């Protein structure tokens, strides 16, 4: 039989959406306001069934749009309620102005986001364009490779959000994970509840003994200070995220970091990648290792805040790096992860540290498959560059008709 990491854990076959909803039930937030959208619909559907069946005491608010969902969540969280929601793609896009308000008001909401392409053309499948577009909204962003990580990240989410007073999104890839049934270890309800603890906001609107104003107009005199405080909170978020991960490891036995280093100790060529495709790439890394190629992989878990210093130090040891982006920024100068990775590396240049050569691949938009052959193709190019070959175009698009 498959062993659990935690003695009281239970191995089950569940989809990404099912385990996201399961973690929400176990945390049992005071309020969930949500609107269904493919491929995140099941999270809302399953959770509302939990509420209807009396399995969770949450106040479920069925709203008429995602804009209203985020607005209701902001109101509930400001009132002092532990609040969660879930969405995807166009739903996240419709929340746009409210995302910035949640962050600006320093409300520790938690949102499950199932990554999906943005229209047009209309497409329901997995890529990370939706949350990548929200990367500057002031939300913590934590990405998951598989259902287990999606579940574990959800279990850690409220503590991170509430300690930092920053809204937090936990994401995983649409359909590829949200609708894929896999082996997941589910933790006991009471242990998750104990880990999540109670939400004790410093101030809240329903605290009539200490009334305060939230969301007032804030012009030249103080707006900048408040936005500075938001930036400062993000700048100081990493230790808190690591502290929660450490406690999760001590309690439940699964290790999490800002990013996962796979075969990186003596690697010369490596990928930097986010999400489900990392799992496919690991198979290729294993294969190359068995043939003597010093291949490695870094899988970003925490994208906001961006672990720039840590990454720059780890990447300095490499000869050639391919950054893999499942989103495009249409900036004409590389996709989101690439620009952040190369910016991080510039601090190495300033400090006189070694610099790897870096190329960018945009892949998998709209759910386009990326398989073992594609990763072999990428690594073959990195090996050629390592041997002194030309770099060629820095930004490439893989498995696309040109």
């Amino acid at each position, binding site marked *: 039989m*498959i062993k659990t990491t935690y003695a009281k854990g239970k191995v089950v076959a569940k989809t990404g959406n099912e385990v996201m909803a399961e973690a929400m039930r176990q945390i049992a937030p005071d309020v969930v306001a949500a609107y269904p959208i493919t491929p995140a619909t099941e999270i809302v559907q399953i959770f509302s069934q939990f509420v209807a069946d009396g399995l969770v005491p949450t106040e479920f608010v069925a709203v008429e749009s995602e804009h209203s969902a985020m607005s209701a969540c902001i109101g509930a969280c400001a009132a002092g309620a532990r609040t969660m929601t879930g969405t995807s793609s166009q739903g996240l896009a419709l929340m746009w102005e409210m995302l910035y308000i949640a962050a600006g008001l320093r409300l520790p909401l938690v949102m499950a986001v199932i990554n999906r392409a943005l229209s047009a053309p209309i497409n329901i499948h997995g890529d990370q364009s939706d949350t990548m577009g929200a990367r500057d909204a002031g939300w913590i962003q934590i990405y998951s490779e598989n259902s287990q990580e999606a579940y574990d990240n959800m279990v850690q989410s409220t503590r991170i959000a509430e300690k930092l007073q920053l809204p937090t999104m936990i994401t995983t890839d649409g359909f*590829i994970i949200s609708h894929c049934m896999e082996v997941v270890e589910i933790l006991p309800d009471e242990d998750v509840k104990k880990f999540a603890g109670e939400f004790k906001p410093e101030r809240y609107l329903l605290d009539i003994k200490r009334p305060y104003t939230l969301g007032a107009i804030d012009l030249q005199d103080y707006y900048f200070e408040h936005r500075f405080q938001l930036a400062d909170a993000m700048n100081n978020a990493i230790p808190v995220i690591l502290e929660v991960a450490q406690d999760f490891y001590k309690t439940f036995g699964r290790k999490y970091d800002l990013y996962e280093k796979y075969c990186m100790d003596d690697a010369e060529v490596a990928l930097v990648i986010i999400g489900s495709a990392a799992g496919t790439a690991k198979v290729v890394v294993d294969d190359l290792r068995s043939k003597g190629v010093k291949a490695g992989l870094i899988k970003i878990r925490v994208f906001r805040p961006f672990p720039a210093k840590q990454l720059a130090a780890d990447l300095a040891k490499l000869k050639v790096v391919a950054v893999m982006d499942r989103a495009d920024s249409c900036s004409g100068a590389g996709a989101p992860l690439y620009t952040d990775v190369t910016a991080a590396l510039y601090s190495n240049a300033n400090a006189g540290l070694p610099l790897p050569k870096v190329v960018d691949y945009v892949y998998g938009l709209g759910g386009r498959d990326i398989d073992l052959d594609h990763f072999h193709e990428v690594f073959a190019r990195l090996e050629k560059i390592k041997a002194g070959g030309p770099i060629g175009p820095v930004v490439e698009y893989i498995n696309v008709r040109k």
Partner: protein
Amino acid sequence: MIEIRWHGRGGQGAKTAALLFAEAALATGKYIQAFPEYGPERMGAPVQSFNRISDVPITLHCGLHEPSFVVILDPTLMDSVPVTAGLKKDGKVIVNTSFSAATIATRLGINASQVFVVNASQIAQDTIGMDIPNTPMLGALVKVIGTLDLNGVLEDTKHKLEQKFRHKPQVIEGNLESIKRAFNEVKNV
């Protein structure tokens, strides 16, 4: 690792079959994946779903292109969908049909030794009272794979169906009976 592709039509339960099969395989101690191919969700349209079954954790999250087993819930799909595409050299095809394995092999252009047939629609009619061939095909697949424990599969499927059909207990026994019958009736001739 065993890779399986299910072919069915929208409404026949190809997705459910893959999910049930994955859960049953997990119950026998294997690592599993089950995922559908999502397209326009229309009743009757050709659909596919997939399984990976392994003794070690599965990290692959790409499409499945070279199955070792193909399960065909609706034989008319053989006329319109390339059901043997990517099939491994010694891969096996299991078809819901009343024709012989030799006839189906000729039609698919593969060796007769690769083809297994079972009249799952008839079994479903007899046991469940409807032409829902997915659960009988589950039984046929367990037999053809040969390394999974039928009793473990039955037990897990019963548990799963009890949850899903808690308001319709009468369908549970029929479904279990259909798995057993297909397990016993699937043949290579």
